[in-house]
């Protein structure tokens, strides 16, 4: 385990919430949808409405880990001219609004970072006050450049594990990650589901056993009840498509923001109902 884990802003936030006896709500929105200015408004609305950690998506032409909702938003963002560097503006806005209380992670496919320059991106993200990166198509095995750059610039590295991950790969990923490990609740892409995979709880337990200090669960969570259920066993509940969906309607923008706020409020209530049987216990 890297000693730098102790200084992870995201890890510290998850620890603080753990002592309150609840899981974190991690909210995802893409930059640039419907345009950069309004995507900043939406992310700040999400922060004000109660997310604990922000995940800002970089729109990408070939998002193979995303379902139709996030694909549509990404496609519209790119059509509207969103640039990779715009994500830094959103990160700055979150850092300013929350006074650094809400860690801002960037979720990005790998090629935009490669093209920007791995070290340059890490430097600029750190300069903007960002907490780190979530990398859905970068496994630690291919991540030597990123691991070096994130150490240099003191950033979190959130790698993913899946129900198909072997114990060896869980250990490898836990070792390489800083902040938390992202556990995909089910085999599949992002999107809302009626049920969160029943393998999620086992995966979280296995990932902890493999050495991870913090494990958050994503894919499929959309309701307060699901957030409460997942919050029972995970350090954080990651929600994406359910937050993007209210923004994809053709209602007036103010109404769409209201829709987003009420979804965040329901989910925030859910993680607060997830109070553990043994507060403070890791598993």
């Amino acid at each position, binding site marked *: 385990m890297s000693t730098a884990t102790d200084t992870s802003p995201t890890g510290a936030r998850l620890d603080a919430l753990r002592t309150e006896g609840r899981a974190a709500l991690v909210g995802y929105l893409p930059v640039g949808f419907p345009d950069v200015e309004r995507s900043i408004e939406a992310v700040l609305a999400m922060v004000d409405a109660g997310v604990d950690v922000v995940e800002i998506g970089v729109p990408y032409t070939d998002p*193979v880990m995303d379902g139709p909702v996030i694909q549509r938003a990404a496609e519209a963002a790119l059509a509207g001219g969103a640039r990779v560097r715009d994500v830094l503006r959103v990160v700055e806005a979150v850092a300013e609004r929350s006074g650094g209380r809400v860690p801002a992670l960037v979720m990005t496919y790998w090629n935009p970072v490669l093209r920007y320059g791995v070290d340059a991106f890490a430097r600029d993200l750190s300069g903007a006050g960002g907490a780190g990166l979530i990398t859905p*198509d970068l496994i630690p095995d291919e991540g030597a450049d990123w691991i070096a750059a994130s150490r240099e610039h003191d950033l979190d590295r959130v790698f993913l594990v899946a129900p198909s991950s072997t114990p060896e790969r869980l250990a490898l990923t836990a070792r390489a990650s800083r902040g938390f490990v992202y556990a995909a609740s089910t085999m599949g892409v992002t999107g809302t589901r009626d049920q969160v995979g029943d393998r999620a709880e086992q995966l979280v337990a296995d990932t902890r056993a493999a050495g991870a200090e913090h494990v958050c669960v994503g894919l499929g969570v959309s309701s307060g009840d699901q957030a409460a259920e997942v919050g029972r066993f995970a350090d954080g509940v990651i929600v994406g498509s359910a937050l993007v969906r209210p923004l994809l309607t053709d209602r007036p923008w103010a109404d769409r923001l209201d829709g987003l706020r009420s979804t965040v409020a329901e989910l925030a209530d859910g993680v607060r109902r997830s109070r553990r049987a043994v507060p403070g216990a890791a598993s």
Partner: protein
Amino acid sequence: MPEQPVREALTETLAHQVLGRLADVEGPYFGQFGGRFVPEALIAALDELETEYRKALGDPAFTDELARLHREYTGRPSPLTEVPRFAEHCGGADAGHRVFLKREDLNHTGSHKINNVLGQALLVKRMGKTRVIAETGAGQHGVATATAAALLDLECVVYMGEEDTRRQALNVARMRLLGAEVVPVTIGSRTLKDAINEALRDWVANVESTHYLLGTVTGPHPFPEMVREFHRIIGEEAREQILERTGRLPDAVAACVGGGSNALGIFNAFLDDEGVTLHGFEAGGEGIESGRHAARFSGGAPGVLHGARSYLLQDDDGQTLPSHSVSAGLDYPSVGPAHSWLHDLGRATYEPVTDDEAMEAFRLLCRTEGIIPAIESAHALAGAQRLGREAAEAGRTGQVILVNLSGRGDKDVATAATWFGLLDEQDTTEQATAPEGDQ
């Protein structure tokens, strides 16, 4: 985790690889290219696939069965045909060049694609999976996959960009006749790249029952290496055939390069023959300067797409740029990592051939030799013409040029008929709307 910067490690890998036989290089890296840039959810399946494929290649039960299918089902070995009337248009009759076509168009299903598909489908049976998915552009790989799925009793779903289902409507019908489900992909640019995205999403969700029968030498390790292994038979046969016919190795080998499977298949047998030059021809579309092409080596830069690091058409933000070609099978913004490696090593050259040049070579082969090539393969034919011309200009006569004729052109008749204005007025709107979007 390794602290060493990736580039240094890769340089070492490259040095190691150069010392061995180029034809036998194993993944995950070809020089600095290749790798596994995919979601973690797929890694266990890729590991399983690599293990099974290596075991299978060493198991006579597998290799014998594959050889039997090649012989009795596909019709291998495919012939080598000398094309003297076409050769007169490669640098002129005075140049005295000899041109030979490796006839992958005569394989069952009409292209080289069947070689890889049968190999992978037999692997699927060994792994106990019951469902295959595939992407297709021109439809040739989809048809080959649907064929193997019918033969080996596998459920089959083929993802195809909506734009391509329109361009290649006959192949959609062929796949459905063979019992496959064809899913038109309606997101993104609606072509091959988006079909691959959709197939990857399906695979992530269904990986326990499903094998992704990837159709070319791209994708995450072990696909680039494994698909090369299933296609190396093209070059091995051709090398033997041309030695028998001419008593020597060819001077040049030409192939079209989309993902690059037919090219790697024929190049591979000659990689370690120093005197043989290797030439890949990419889709130059409407010309490099037009921006409407699929010439990754002329207009692209290294980047990551669909699991591998390779040359890629991309913008300053690393967003994938749309590709363009009259040929759906070459219309792909990236290329197999082994080709990027051969390019950077200087072992093979890669040049664009425009739509116009390819269609002229297409017409020429029809008229001089009575062979209707796939428009993809017509890019290699145009390349052979260029090679013959350049050799003649340099004073080299009597060259032997080997061309991989990777597929037949039945699927392209509507496109060609419109291109050359061969249909009567009233038929034009009904039968020949296919290629308009791309010309």
